[in-house]
């Protein structure tokens, strides 16, 4: 895409983003080739493959990949396509195996992706076929970050933590135990569903689009939170009642909505419907405060790690990958997280809460999806496409010298979305990694 094309689509300065980004087949194709081949993408979680030989089939962009723990215990991610004629070598979702046997002509691959068996090798291929060069296609880089597995197809991509930048402190809180210990979470289930909306609607929803709150009026009226039976309205308990909410756009395109608790930082009663939970979360809160000190004041809420991974840092806690499925459809995968060593009553309560909140049967998320669908559908028209979306909310209302980094706003803002599309434009023009990370021009070499 030329600079001129991109300027016509993404006008961050004036706050306009073309609808073409959400409906156009050509732009979608370019996203697949320029963006999803370079950015770090969420593949899964180590708790899905706890033992040697365990595999879990996942997706990166539009393509199927296999997340696999080899015999030695090392984690790999491969393209799920045979090197011979492309047959999908694994069509099971999850399991344990010592070999992947291609159903088509029976080439076999070991759990570290190496081509092992080739029927009639001696008579048909001897001296020609290089097994090593015909392994399953591996991702270029892989990272197990606190149990969450990320990968990129770009060998020149910076390491994952560099990619995350200052968004790390926020994502951490989705991945860490409630009592502040590093990691220690497990996936208790995965939702997968397809909905007819462009993937960026979903990504943007979690980029601090707090403004869409009114769309959840129905669930707020009836109350489904952890203290709903005790009479509290709303879709969750307001644990951040006294906190200073912050909305931060990070230079690599990530965005978060978090909150900073006041200095006194006292536990706010939530989970009133169940004394075991109330006690557990109160205990975790105090422990976290003890462990992290002043750092415990930072509370996560939601965010999107560029381009298509979103998280819920409190409840319903989890990671969500918004896989592109077509210009106007998305395949959503939501991985629900709990502390691995939480009491079973806590886990049981949380899974129920997650199910009634999230996903296609979730009383909250249903209304989100409805909006994404009809916003996509009503933007496909010739006339509609002439009129860009408006992103002028809270223009300029941010600071760049807050200790949390990024462009930080104390009010609801579309600055995060503007930051997202600024970075989206960099990928579209094949920018170098210095620009993709949003480094100031002077510091760019360091990243390459």
């Amino acid at each position, binding site marked *: 895409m030329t600079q001129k094309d991109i300027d016509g689509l993404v006008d961050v300065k004036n706050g306009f983003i073309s609808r073409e980004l959400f409906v156009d087949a050509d732009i979608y194709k370019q996203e697949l080739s320029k963006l999803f081949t370079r950015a770090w993408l969420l593949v899964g979680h180590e708790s899905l493959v706890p033992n040697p030989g365990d595999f879990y089939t996942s997706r990166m962009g539009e393509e199927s990949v296999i997340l696999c723990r080899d015999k030695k215990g090392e984690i790999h991610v491969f393209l799920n396509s045979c090197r011979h004629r492309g047959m999908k070598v694994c069509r099971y979702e999850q399991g344990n195996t010592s070999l992947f046997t291609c159903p088509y002509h029976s080439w076999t691959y070991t759990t570290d992706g190496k081509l092992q068996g080739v029927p009639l090798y001696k008579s048909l291929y001897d001296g020609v076929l290089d097994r090593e060069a015909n392994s399953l296609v591996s991702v270029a880089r892989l990272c197990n970050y606190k149990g969450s597995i990320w990968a990129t197809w770009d060998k020149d991509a910076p390491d994952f933590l560099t990619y995350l930048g200052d968004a790390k402190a926020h994502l951490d809180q989705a991945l860490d135990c409630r009592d502040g210990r590093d990691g220690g979470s497990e996936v208790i289930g995965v939702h997968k569903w397809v909905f007819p909306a462009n993937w960026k609607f979903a990504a943007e929803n979690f980029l601090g689009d707090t403004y869409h709150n009114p769309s959840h009026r129905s669930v707020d009226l009836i109350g489904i939170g952890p203290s709903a039976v005790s009479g509290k309205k709303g879709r969750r308990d307001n644990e951040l009642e006294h906190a200073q909410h912050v909305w931060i756009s990070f230079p690599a395109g990530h965005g978060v909505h978090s909150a900073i608790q006041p200095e006194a930082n006292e536990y706010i009663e939530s989970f009133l419907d169940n004394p075991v939970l109330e006690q557990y979360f109160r205990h975790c809160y105090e422990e976290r405060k003890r462990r992290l000190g002043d750092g415990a004041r930072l509370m996560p809420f939601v965010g999107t790690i560029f381009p298509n991974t979103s998280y819920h840092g409190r409840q319903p806690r989890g990671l969500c990958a918004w896989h592109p499925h077509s210009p106007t459809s998305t395949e959503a995968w939501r991985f629900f997280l709990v502390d691995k060593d939480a009491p079973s009553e806590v886990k049981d309560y949380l*899974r129920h809460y997650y199910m009634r909140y999230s996903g296609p049967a979730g009383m909250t998320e249903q209304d989100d999806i409805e909006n994404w669908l009809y916003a996509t559908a009503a933007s496909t028209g010739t006339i509609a496409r002439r009129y860009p979306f408006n992103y002028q909310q809270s223009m300029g209302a941010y600071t760049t010298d807050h200790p949390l980094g990024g462009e930080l706003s104390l009010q609801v803002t579309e600055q995060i979305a503007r930051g997202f599309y600024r970075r989206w434009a960099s990928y579209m023009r094949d920018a170098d990694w210095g620009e993709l990370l949003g480094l100031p021009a002077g510091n760019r070499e360091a990243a390459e």
Partner: protein
Amino acid sequence: MSSALSQTKPIPAEKCAGNPSIARTEHYYRLKADVEDFYYYEADLLDARRFREWLDLLTEDISYFMPIRRNVKFGQHEARENTRRGEGISWFDEDKWTLTKRVDQILTGVHYAEEPLSRITHMVTNVQIKDARPNLDQAEEVDVASRILVYQNRVEYETYTLVGRRNDTLRLVDNSWKVCRREIILEQNILLAKNLTMFF
């Protein structure tokens, strides 16, 4: 029972799927007709959007469950194909409180995923009594298997057809049937519908 039916030779118990004590006797067919009638009434309430009255057809201790189905290797279906009631994440694993909340939400009039309301038809077929307690003659609790087809049309162009199996336990309460346990098994892996706002 009509004379035509009572003249039919009952299917011997060992040829009936499920509990072999459920032979196709006259009592069986009478009970089945009764249960079918109940299902038609239930479908009518749902399709007429009489959600509150539908809730009355569920016992207070109802367990309402829809597993997520997985692609598993031959031989592992029994153990791993469906997520389980009471464990992890499914599409639904609910009680009366949550189902009531779902109805309350639709009735707010601002649940946009059902506003405007969808047009929905429920078809129930292949009804078979799998067990009756204490017996077919004086059943107070029955296990029933059926197939269900739920057609949804939303706003203008959106349509979804969800097809699956349903395994129920019905209980006689004050002389009418109520659902006390329901399992809905959709024939899908990745859900090919944006939302599950309807009841099954």
